[in-house]
């Protein structure tokens, strides 16, 4: 097991290097370079831009710049935000808890919705609940997610007034209940697509598990049907489900950009949109690197989990 983890980790490193080259190349593809935003400002003199360019090391050859950027990234020196001059690492870290709270709630909601729907769909195939789930899951993957968020906001916050329409807490009243009320709508918005996909996934792996011999054997031994479904079949069907959940959590990070913007959620996603509007390249680069690294690590985690949960995979 340890050797497997080490081998997978060593495969992740070249992958991360390729990703870092891609991201570095992207930022330096800007016509005016990373200092583009100053070029448009008539109050900034050309010689000042030149001085800044030299001071930031942007006049050095690209491979050299890349290496020093990479060295900085690995050692935790991510540079300073163009917008407010504070360290990029601090800006990301202070937004991280909000995003984790949102992602955690969304994953919880999606799993709680997908689990019963997937199991029920597999047990009662072609029932009306199964058909409706299929329909809703198809609708889920076809929905423009920001539009769904706007509708949620309009109906439950503006129209009915049940829940707050934006932010993470009410001003000066950060009680647990208040925080819970704030997270519900954005978490539902983020969870919607994944709940749809996960329930379909669980349904198909559950349907396979229900036809396995050990399930038929369990039935033959006279074990109650609910126990066959929930204890025997589900335990086996959950394995691929857990893997997909972990892999999809990585995709959710990108969904958080949209969700946080619609609900003014003060997390990494809104930091990204703010940085994009101001062309704050140091923050944008760090955001892309962090999220890509998270995707790679979650892939790794999914592999390791799969192996840890299913001894049959170990060869």
């Amino acid at each position: 097991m340890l050797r497997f983890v080490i081998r997978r980790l060593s495969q992740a490193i070249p992958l991360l290097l390729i990703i870092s080259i891609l991201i570095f190349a992207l930022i330096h593809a800007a016509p005016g370079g990373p200092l583009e935003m100053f070029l448009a400002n008539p109050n900034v003199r050309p010689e000042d831009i030149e001085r800044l360019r030299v001071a930031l090391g942007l006049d050095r050859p690209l491979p050299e710049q890349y290496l020093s950027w990479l060295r900085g990234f690995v050692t935790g020196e991510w540079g300073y935000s163009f917008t407010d001059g504070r360290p990029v690492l601090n800006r990301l870290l202070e937004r991280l808890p909000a995003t984790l709270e949102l992602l955690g709630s969304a994953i919880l909601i999606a799993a709680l919705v997908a689990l019963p729907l997937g199991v029920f769909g597999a047990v009662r195939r072609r029932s009306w609940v199964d058909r409706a789930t299929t329909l809703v899951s198809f609708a889920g993957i076809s929905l423009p997610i920001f539009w769904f968020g706007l509708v949620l906001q309009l109906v439950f916050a503006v129209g009915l007034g049940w829940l707050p329409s934006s932010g993470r807490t009410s001003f000066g009243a950060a009680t647990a209940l208040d925080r819970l009320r704030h997270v519900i709508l954005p978490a539902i918005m983020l969870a919607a697509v994944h709940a749809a996909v996960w329930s379909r996934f669980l349904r198909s792996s559950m349907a396979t598990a229900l036809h396995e011999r050990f399930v038929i054997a369990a039935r033959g031994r006279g074990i109650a049907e609910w126990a066959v479904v929930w204890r025997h079949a589900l335990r086996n069907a959950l394995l691929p489900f857990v893997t997909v959940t972990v892999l999809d959590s990585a995709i959710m990070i990108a969904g958080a950009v949209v969700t946080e913007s619609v609900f003014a959620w003060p997390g990494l996603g809104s930091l990204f949109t703010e940085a994009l509007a101001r062309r704050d390249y140091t923050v944008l680069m760090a955001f892309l690197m962090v999220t890509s690294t998270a995707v790679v690590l979650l892939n790794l985690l999914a592999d390791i989990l799969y192996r840890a949960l299913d001894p049959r995979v170990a060869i």
Partner: protein
Amino acid sequence: MRALKQHPARIALVMLLLLAILAVTAPLVTPFGPESIDLVNRRAAPSLTHWFGTDELGRDVLTRTLFGARISLAIGLLSATITALVGVTVGAVSGYAGKWLDSILMRITDAMLSVPRLPLLMIAAAILEPSIPILILLVGLTGWMETARVVRAEFLSLTQRPFTEAARAAGARDSHIISRHLLPNAAAPAIVSATLAVGRGILLESVMSFFGVGVQPPNASWGNMLYQAQTTMSTEPWLALFPGMFIFTTVLSVNVLGEELSMNNAP
């Protein structure tokens, strides 16, 4: 209702064809211009003259939605074409050449799959000054990875089959084997993933325009209509309702079609 249960794909196809016809003939079927401003009838609710109402400049929402369909469909179809071309090329080269070329191409594919697509696209579009051709190119060039993997897997298994070996034994050149034996057999899964790419392209256009880095005003696209509608959604919901419904119906139809294609394709 029965037709819907039996032939969802047929309905999806009819919907898409209808939309395509309306989009192509938009200047003929709409009585208003997409950018003709009518300041007297600003923010008018849906009525017999303006079926979908008017926006904050008195422009007809139905007209703009149909003109928006041209842009959304063009972005979806053309970006999916790029996706298919790049994906099939990378997958074919990788699967046929094997060895070091395969491992390099697959590492790049893995790397591209690990970078979250939407933030990547938003940064790229912001850097390159968004225009419709650039949008098409960007969406197409960031979506080929799944197609490449599918085609590569097909190629790997096809090259082991007897008919490929027979062709090689008969002295066929690589180009002949690829174009006559391998590509036709790998076409079906490639078409399925290209179909799904159309839907994803339309959704990506709408999100990017929603963030202001997609299609720029005064051009109408479904995404930027929603972007403009979001501030007044509670008072003029029709501004957001109709473009949203169009995106949803179109992408749903494309996905139903893709699902049906992959079901027919499964052995």
